[in-house]
């Protein structure tokens, strides 16, 4: 997007040959996309992918932990594990 914004095109996946969407990508829009791509890549360069996309894995982990804790909280007769020998 940064280096080849002039060649960007848009296509309707459901009707690739019968729906011309090229009007949506004007020169102005392509310039804005190139500018946004440049800023994003600079931010990634400076602060890493997580600065842009967030901690995707941690969000999944946090959600799982939350659900596991909820499951634990509704356990009727919780048991504590033990080990016969040490």
């Amino acid at each position, binding site marked *: 997007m940064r280096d080849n914004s002039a060649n960007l095109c848009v296509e309707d996946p459901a009707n690739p040959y019968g729906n011309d969407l090229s009007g949506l990508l004007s020169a102005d829009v392509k310039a804005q996309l190139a500018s946004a791509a440049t800023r994003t890549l600079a931010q990634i360069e400076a602060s890493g992918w997580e600065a842009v996309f967030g901690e995707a894995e941690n969000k999944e982990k946090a959600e799982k*932990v939350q659900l596991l*804790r909820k499951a634990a909280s*509704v*356990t009727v*007769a*919780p048991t504590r*594990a033990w080990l016969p020998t040490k």
Partner: protein
Amino acid sequence: MTGLWHRVNPTLYQKEKSEVETHYPDLHFVRVGDSVRLCGTFAVTYEGRVLDRYSVELQLARDHPKSLPLVREVGGRIPQHEHRHINPRDGMACVLLPDERWRVWPPGSSLLSFLTGPVHSFFLAQSLVDLGHPCPFGQWEHGAKGIFQYYSELLKTSDVRVICNFLECLAAKKVKGHWRCPCRNGRLLRHCHSNVITDLKEKICRRDATKSLEMLRAAGPLSLDKVPTADSVISISASELQRHTSAERSYLTCQEEPPTIQGLVSPPQSDQKSQL
């Protein structure tokens, strides 16, 4: 030698099989020689949503459901380490303390309730530990320390001699009313904690009490010095703590009426005649 449970009671076998395979379609009954095993994938769930899965193998005891099933995680997800409550010698998962069975899987309960109860609790806790969180239900110390910790909480005492005395009564075939009370207050059992003993004998089987007593005796009192006891494990308010401490003091020195042990029956009043 007792007969194999599934041959002696084929109706029970069919009932257990049907219940478990309906609730857990990924678990299957397998007959290996004389033993019955339950193999497959065990799902940790919450409101019908699967949160985690473990490959498991449960070996049902020859006298099932009298003895506890043996549980193994066979997918290699849980490190075979004491800290994860997996016995490194045989890969057995220690899902509960046998003495506590009466509370979570009393005799006569179905295999399905063992899976939805203690087994689910165990693997749910393992999933949280996997993600770097503590066990949600806490955990017993290993070996004799865990037994001491359990009875310490149950009887509200940190005196190992009192715990051993109670265990001696639980391990005995018959308990006599003219014995000295295990609480060490000098009274006869029939005038003190006979109701507690009667109640506990119904809940904790002799075999488990005997094993626990042997483990405590083998460990010796010194090894139990730093075990968290009822006082440190249970989170109670200052006023409750004061009440609890004074109650325990009176319980041990018998200056007053012995306190009620939570979850158990009260000791008899002085004008009550014991059944023992």
